[in-house]
């Protein structure tokens, strides 16, 4: 048996340090100013975050009011589940029921708002060239993935979105009670006249993207797992990239802010919150 190169601390250190500089697809770019996929028109120094999520990956970030967030479906089969919290007071969080009820519409797209349970807008959708999203079906869980793939546990090859969201939320001191109903980006679910949920699982052309604007200071939690109703037998999901950069706080003449009386009041409530 040959002597191992990691038999002592110096050898183990050399072995560990020799990994420096390895690039894989699913990883963060640190620092973000070195982002390889910087969105057009964004100066390098404005970049706050670039990270590619693997199939089954998750990530989280605190973002300040005004920050822009682009979600990119790198290969055409991403399914990004998202939780949103008010970073300053995380008991305020995304409320999917208020989001659809207040806007009188259940389909997300450019110009729509993501509303909190406190009558405020957490984020706006500025751009969206996808085919739609899902606000009805929620994340997969261990039981669902076990039925589909045999093992649904987080430690296995088919991690479920609920556990991934939980791990992201736990990084911010949050727990099981904080995994609120989520949005699934990139996988459109529409409702038939009889109430049936119709998922178009794709895959789609690579490079679809949407851009959000943070309207409050946010904790953003993302998990990239197959849609819970995806009919394909395999663990059908591909990488997603998240990019964030600094941007101005929404001005009073913003068209999204002023698009409807409900939208205007959601922004007025945010502006009142920050009046201190």
């Amino acid at each position, binding site marked *: 048996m040959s002597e191992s190169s990691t038999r002592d601390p110096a050898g183990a250190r050399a072995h560990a340090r020799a990994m420096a500089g390895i690039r894989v697809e699913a990883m963060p770019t640190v620092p973000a100013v070195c982002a390889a996929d910087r969105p057009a028109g964004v100066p390098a120094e404005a970049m706050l975050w670039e990270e590619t999520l693997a199939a089954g990956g998750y990530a989280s970030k605190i973002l300040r009011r005004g920050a822009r967030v682009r979600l990119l479906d790198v290969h055409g089969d991403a399914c990004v589940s998202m939780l949103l919290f008010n970073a300053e007071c995380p*008991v305020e969080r995304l*409320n*999917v*029921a*208020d989001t*659809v*009820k*207040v806007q*009188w*519409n*259940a*389909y997300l797209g450019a110009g729509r708002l993501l*509303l909190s*349970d*406190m*009558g*405020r807008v957490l984020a706006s959708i500025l751009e969206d060239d996808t085919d739609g999203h899902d606000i*009805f*079906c*929620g*994340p997969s*869980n*261990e*039981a*669902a993935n076990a039925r589909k793939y045999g093992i649904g546990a987080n430690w296995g090859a088919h991690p479920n979105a*609920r556990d991934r969201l939980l791990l992201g939320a736990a990084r911010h001191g949050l*727990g*099981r*009670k*904080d*995994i*609120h*109903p*989520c949005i699934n980006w990139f996988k459109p679910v*529409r*409702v038939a*006249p*009889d*109430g*049936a*949920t119709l998922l178009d699982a794709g895959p789609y052309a690579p490079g679809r993207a949407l851009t959000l604007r943070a309207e409050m200071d946010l904790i953003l939690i993302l998990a990239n797992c197959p849609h*819970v*109703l995806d009919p394909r037998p395999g663990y059908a999901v591909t990488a997603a990239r998240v990019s964030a950069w600094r941007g101005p706080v929404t001005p009073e003449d913003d068209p999204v802010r002023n698009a409807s009386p*409900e939208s205007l*009041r*959601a922004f007025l*409530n945010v502006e009142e919150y920050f009046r201190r």
Partner: protein
Amino acid sequence: MSSREEVLLDEIVPARAPWDHVLRRRETLRIVDLEGNQSADFLLYALHDDAERYSAQDTIAAQRNVYLKTGSVLYSNEGNPMARIVASTVERHDTIGGACSCESNTLRYGHHTKSHHSCVDNFLHANTRHGRGKRDMVSNINWFMNVPVEADGALGIVDGISAPGLHVELLAEMDLVVVISNCPQINNPCNAFNPTPLRVIIKGPGRIEACSPRS
């Protein structure tokens, strides 16, 4: 020896009031819309682990339909069946419209409605007595409430399809805490603009009775 269904509870939930109760596995809960088109906002928690609770999204995904009807199984956020609808004399019920709150009232109707009673107030008031709080607020069920979704995604709380005396009945699949807000909303048609009482009836397997030599 014999066992039979016994009425364990038969109460009126006053207009605008919250109500909560334990519902054991195999017990049934009937909610009666006494005067018609009265939304019963409704949440479930697992009795022994209230981080496990009703999940509208898991329920919708499991049945691949947004409307709750006879036969619908109400799932938890952990993917476990909590209860099933064993009877409903109303065609369908809502689970996407959520609960009204002071804050959402300011968006939907204007800041003059912030002081109105709301379901979130009712849920919080009932839950905080048992150590639960705002983190325990999730998308709920609205029994007897009508929220159609149209082809372009347009949706809204519209005139109800319930009527006086119609009911829904659930069978518990695990030991549960049931929390109801008898919706106090007066700014939309969910209560026909007039909150009214509900009746709740819990039935369960009767106690085993001792044999006695009666003639």
